[in-house]
């Protein structure tokens, strides 16, 4: 993994800690302590109480650029222990050399645990970076990571400037303070509530839910989808989780952005926020958005992947987060498979459609639905104008309507509702399958005779037909 700046190195170490804590499934703490010894030297300690580290996550780093630029001396001091270990192991890693085989791993004396059961890791390093720059990067990082909303991890950021006495400052980040879930909540459920919180606060621009837009929680429609790779594939154990949220915004809200026609796709890889790869952009542009009534005009890479929509209703905002991670530890270095992304995004959109009838209707379904009122009115008209009470009775009972004293509107609405639900149900089915509707009079179908499934075209008369 290529590290391009000293700050990125720290963030990588923090995300490794984060990952280890998530895997432990216990209540965990991550502490990042930054001590500036001088304006440009920072001593950093990142410690966590997650599962023990296997060191692979440190050994594969490619930090040649920052070492060459003398932002870092290449040395990591790591103390780690797993719950079943009897000792706390201590290592020095020297990542100065480019070639991994000539990198050195020095084992230092370990500390006994004296029978106590705990696990965790501490990493020490010194870098050349301004404390303010790093603090701002870490804060930004933590805010993003809150979207994952992992309930069992508390993150603490401590900063101290040695040359300024009393400058120690502590900041704690907790997942979803307003609505903590149980520790056993799945990652995707956490991701859902995390993104919800993010959307309610207009993407980290507010500290609280925006009451102008979201006075009632019905303004948010949430869907999620999961795809995982099969066990025997070389990239076994990859999980792709996607959450999509559609929200209605109020134009009088000061945060109302005109970018309701844009969606910034948030991307996490192994519990770390990162930018989208090119292949992700490609996959997103191949999704059949049309079948959800959406027109994708453009996919833009602005560091973050941005989807630009044409034709979207002006107050509707779509937010999306993708999270790809390895289920097991240690993880292998593989790219998320494109089909997993497509599968998970499609699953999330379908989930939205199913749980919130009426949204994301394909253009085809919308067109057909526009005829539903007319059809319902005709059928209702036929039922109500009949003078045969048995016929009417049977119709009412089929529709599940009790009283015959119901007005025309009630009958019409009932029929229309059923027609629309059939149209939506068909809309959710995959396109390839031909929905074969039964015909009105069954005895007509002599299947052996020339049954043509053709549309009747108008304008093809043999003669001018006037009478």
């Amino acid at each position: 993994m290529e590290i391009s700046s000293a700050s990125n190195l720290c963030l990588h170490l923090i995300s490794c800690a984060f990952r280890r804590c998530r895997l432990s499934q216990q209540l965990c703490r991550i502490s990042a302590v930054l001590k500036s010894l001088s304006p440009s030297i920072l001593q950093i300690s990142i410690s966590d109480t997650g599962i023990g580290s296997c060191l692979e996550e440190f050994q594969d780093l490619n930090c040649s650029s920052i070492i060459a630029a003398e932002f870092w001396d290449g040395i990591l001091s790591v103390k780690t222990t797993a719950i079943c270990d009897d000792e706390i192991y201590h290592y020095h890693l020297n990542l100065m050399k480019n070639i991994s085989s000539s990198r050195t791993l020095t084992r230092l004396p370990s500390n006994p645990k004296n029978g106590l059961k705990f696990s965790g890791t501490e990493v020490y390093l010194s870098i050349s970076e301004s404390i303010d720059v790093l603090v701002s990067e870490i804060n930004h990082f933590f805010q993003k990571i809150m979207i994952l909303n992992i309930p069992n991890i508390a993150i603490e950021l401590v900063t101290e400037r040695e040359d300024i006495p009393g400058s120690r400052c502590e900041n704690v980040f907790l997942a979803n303070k307003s609505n903590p879930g149980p520790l056993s909540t799945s990652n995707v459920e956490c991701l859902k509530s995390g993104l919800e919180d993010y959307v309610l606060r207009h993407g980290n621009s507010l500290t609280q839910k925006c009451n102008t837009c979201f006075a009632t929680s019905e303004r948010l429609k949430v869907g999620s989808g999961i795809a995982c790779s099969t066990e025997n594939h070389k990239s076994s154990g990859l999980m792709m989780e996607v959450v999509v949220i559609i929200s209605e915004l109020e134009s009088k809200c000061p945060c109302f952005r005109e970018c309701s026609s844009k969606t910034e796709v948030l991307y996490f890889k192994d519990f770390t926020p990162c930018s989208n790869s090119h292949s992700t952009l490609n996959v997103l542009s191949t999704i059949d958005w049309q079948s959800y009534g959406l027109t994708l005009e453009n996919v833009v890479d602005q560091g973050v992947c941005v989807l630009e929509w044409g034709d979207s209703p002006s107050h509707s905002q779509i937010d999306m987060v993708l999270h790809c991670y390895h289920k097991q530890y240690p993880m292998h270095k593989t790219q998320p498979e494109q089909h997993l992304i497509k599968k998970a995004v499609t699953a999330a959109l379908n989930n939205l459609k199913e749980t919130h009838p009426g949204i994301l209707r394909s253009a085809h379904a919308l067109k057909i639905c526009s005829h539903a009122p007319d059809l319902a009115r005709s059928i209702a008209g036929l039922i109500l104008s009949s003078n045969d009470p048995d016929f009417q009775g049977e119709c009412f009972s089929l529709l599940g309507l009790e009283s015959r004293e119901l007005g025309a509107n009630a009958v019409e609405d009932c029929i229309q509702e059923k027609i629309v639900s059939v149209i939506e149900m068909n809309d959710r089915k995959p396109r390839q399958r031909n929905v074969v509707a039964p015909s009105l009079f069954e005895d007509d179908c002599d299947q052996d005779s020339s049954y043509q499934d053709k549309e009747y075209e108008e304008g093809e008369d043999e003669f001018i037909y006037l009478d």
Partner: protein
Amino acid sequence: MKFFTDREICYADILPPSEVRARIEVAVLNFLKILTCADPAISDLLLINRKSSNRRVSQGLLTEDDTWIFLSRSFCKRSLMRANAAKAFIRVWKVMEMCFKILLQEKRVTQRELFYKLLCVSPDCFSSQLQVNRTIQDVVSLLRCSRFSLGIMASSRGIVAGRLLVQEPDKEMVDCSECGSSGYAISGDLNLLDRLVMKTDARYIIIVEKHAIFQRLAEDRVFNHIPIILITARGYPDIATRFLLHRMSRTFPELPIMALVDWNPAGLAILCTFKFGSIGMGLEAYRYACNVKWLGLRGDDLQLIPEESFVSLKPRDLQIAKSLMSSETLQEKHREELALMVQSGKRAEIEALYFHGYDYLGKYIAKKIVQANYI
């Protein structure tokens, strides 16, 4: 004698209003059952295909004169689920609803009246008379009942003049030779036409294509010189005129029926419609086919017409000619005449005969009849 063809025929039954309403009610019940069942769907409408591919010909075994076309068991669908054709689907239901209400009120309407009613109630669905007419045919194909059974009266343009006495039920006898040039108007009410009492001493029935010619012949009282009945649909044959003609042919089977049409493919097409029926109204058309012969204008009359009266055939004429040529029902002699038309690239109207004087037409007809010069 017709055997196998009978199994293939699709009929449009002539039904009383209560039965038609019953069929519509069955349609509604089936629709609702399919809409509310465990695996709900919006049922498609299965219609008998009214295209030339589904057109069949019944050839009489004994004489080639007893030929008519009918529609067979080939179907096509109207479905709500095809976005571009969904409106056509809705239209069928709208017309069914309207007809249902009309039948309940025991009324009858013309197609024109139906169009205006539909325009008031569902302006978004209907935009032209032609669309309404086609939708009516869809309902006929769906319910397999005649248009008349749906409560739709044919608005007849037909008129009769000449040596015929007709009596409508409970009315006075009418002498069609005393009706002047406007003749006796043929009602659109097929029930009424069915109950007309008719008497004649004519020896021939002449179908006249155009109103102007009919008027001239009626005014000149041509039927006082030759014993004929004149009938016209004033253009393309409507069902009521055909119905009456058919009744006349059944009531007076010894009277040959002849057509006087312009020398152009459209004229021949009109003759063929009287003779065989059309697929546009295919489900009912087969019933009213008559044995019609071609009196004039024909190829051998062209020498009577001055050169200036000939006009070029238009693209539409050639289209009609092509379509007629491809029809297997067209007789050999008619086919030859048509080929001559197309070859010459010209057409002429009956009025061209006035070159010889306004009373020439009557003489022309008389001469041809006497010579039995008809094919």
